[in-house]
């Protein structure tokens, strides 16, 4: 079972505070959608509204073209995995999984067959008779997912389900979730503030900030062509370099000039831009480390982060502006060295005062 989900002009207020402001979004059947955003951006609230755990103040939510925002949570045909797992502590794993099915009067043999099948998928047949208190964090996580699977829901909702796991287990579970999605071909909505989870799992990412959707797009769209300065800064680690700049629009493509005279030839058409203040943005992997004098600017190395396959170089320009560049894994650069920084104009971005973005190659 799968479903497309339509969210139309949804708003939510808690008292005088607006949590979600006129939000619209369509989710296609079988899609893996990730709501990504910082704490307090409203992503969990939106998920809980789809689940029916929060009321919708204005607007509507429909699954397969049927309005569901007035239905109680259990009648919406969806399953949710909570951040805390929310397993029933006094019930065995089997009973935890059976509870929802028993409540709708499903025949015992169907329940048993479903539990058996989902336990097999999640490789937890040996855990069925245990209580949640006897399970490790990772095992509880599986049970929580199993409890969702047995319902064969139209859509799965995940509320930061990996945040309580340790790093190794989180990576493994992430891969398993991706496999599960391929296998079940179900619509899945996943809430996280972890951009790696978002990038690796999502078909499309919905980046949210400050009660609104900033951008909806595939992970690479979000990464390569962030719609706003917020998205550019939030997605990607280390964060994108931002430098205040003025534009020289005399040639076909605009040239960004920094305060201390450094200039970078972008591939953003001058005609698209206007006069005014801009922020120049470029990711660390698009800033090469070159011998002094051969790049767009020179800087002194503050910090080195050796990640193995590459080395992040935190260099300070003459005016104190810090730029993160990227060098080979076996880079010979040392802290205190003077290095040249080569900005790749084809990968540079410009952001207007409102946060709106321009990218290379836009016509």
């Amino acid at each position, binding site marked *: 079972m799968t479903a497309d989900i339509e969210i139309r002009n949804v708003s939510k207020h808690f008292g005088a505070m607006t949590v979600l402001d006129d939000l619209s979004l369509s989710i296609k059947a079988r899609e893996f959608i990730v709501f990504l955003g910082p704490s307090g951006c409203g992503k969990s609230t939106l998920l809980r509204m789809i689940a029916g755990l929060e009321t919708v103040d204005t607007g509507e939510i429909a699954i397969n073209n049927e309005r569901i925002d007035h239905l109680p949570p*259990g009648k919406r045909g969806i399953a*949710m995995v*909570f951040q*805390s797992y*929310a397993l029933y*502590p*006094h019930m065995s794993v089997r009973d935890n999984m059976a*509870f929802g099915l028993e*409540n*709708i009067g499903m025949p015992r043999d169907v329940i048993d067959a479903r539990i058996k099948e989902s336990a097999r998928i999640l490789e937890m047949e040996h855990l069925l008779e245990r209580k949640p208190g006897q399970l490790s964090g990772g095992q509880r996580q599986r049970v929580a997912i199993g409890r969702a699977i047995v319902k064969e829901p139209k859509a799965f909702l995940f509320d930061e389900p990996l945040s309580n796991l340790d790093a190794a287990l989180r990576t493994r579970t992430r891969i398993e979730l991706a496999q599960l999605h391929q296998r079940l071909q179900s619509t899945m909505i996943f809430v996280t503030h972890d951009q790696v989870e978002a990038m690796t799992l999502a078909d499309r990412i919905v980046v949210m900030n400050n009660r609104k959707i900033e951008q909806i797009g595939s992970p690479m769209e979000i990464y390569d062509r962030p719609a706003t300065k917020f998205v550019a800064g939030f997605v990607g680690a280390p964060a994108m370099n931002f430098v205040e700049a003025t534009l020289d629009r005399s040639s076909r493509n605009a040239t960004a000039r920094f305060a201390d005279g450094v200039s970078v030839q972008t591939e953003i058409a001058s005609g698209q831009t206007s006069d005014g203040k801009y922020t120049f943005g470029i990711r660390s992997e698009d800033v090469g480390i070159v011998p002094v004098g051969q790049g767009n600017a020179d800087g002194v190395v503050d910090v080195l982060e050796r990640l193995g396959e590459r080395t992040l170089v935190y260099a300070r320009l003459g005016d104190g502006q810090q730029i993160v560049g990227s060098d080979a894994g076996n880079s010979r650069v040392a802290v205190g060295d003077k290095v040249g920084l080569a900005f790749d104009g084809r990968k540079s971005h410009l952001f207007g005062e409102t946060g709106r973005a321009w990218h290379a190659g836009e016509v």
Partner: protein
Amino acid sequence: MDDRRATPRTALPAAGARTASVDIYAPQWRNFIFVAPFLFFFTTLLLVPLFWGMWLSFHKADTFSSGNFVGFGNYIRLFHDKVFLQSVWNTFYFVLLTVPTLALIGLFLALCLNRRTRTAAVLRTLFFSSSVLSVTIVTLIWRIVFIPNVGLLSTIYGWFGATAPAFISDPSLAMIGIAIATVWWCIGLPMMLFLSALQQIPQDIYEAAALDNANRWQTLRSITLPSIKRTFVLVVIVQIVLQFQLFGQAWLMTRGGPNNLTKPIVLYIYDTAFRRWDLGMGAAASEVLFVLILMAAMAQYLVTRNKAGQA
């Protein structure tokens, strides 16, 4: 750990720069000072009277002398005394009337008032307020309610031309009358204990249950009640221990009457020891009560513990 403890004490000052680490969990006689005040009162006010009572129960004693050793004589006399046997039955009957009622009504009130509204807060305070009253006030209030002809109950029945049940004088109703007053008086504590237990249940379990299509009844039966099982046991044990010691209400409302039908064990002890000055027999009756309370509480504890183990 053991190695550190084995370090010779003389090595400590001599070591100079290298001081041995101190085991902060090692027993120290100074620690005794902190528990001494409690131990003093525990011994003089609890342990000594406990054993003195046991000693007394084996002697023929009055207020002037502790008399002769009579072995189980006091106990044998006790179990031949119809009034004592009646008082034991009365006490059990009272416990049976009050403890389940207190537990169930307490739970019901807690379930109703476990919400964040102003009304609920006011009602919580109201239901708890009776607990702060002294037994004298409580019995006075209920005597005013129950008193024949002019009492509140009689007045209300009178409006409908009916006769109110005689809760104080009717032999079959007197104990029920005392139980009603007691439940009204004691309902605050069970309600508060249940409320605090209900508030400990994580909200997300209820959300999961809502997504699992559980209706109100299924949620209560499968989520709420199993989550507060331990508190239920606690409430029942506390109330058994408390209600076995019924005295004030019976003494002030009925004086144990009519015909000793509302005389509880404590009232029997009081009569025997301090009105008939038969201290030995009073002490023996006290020991019986002590054992009864102990057994009831233990039985309740063991039964629920086994059930919890099986589940």
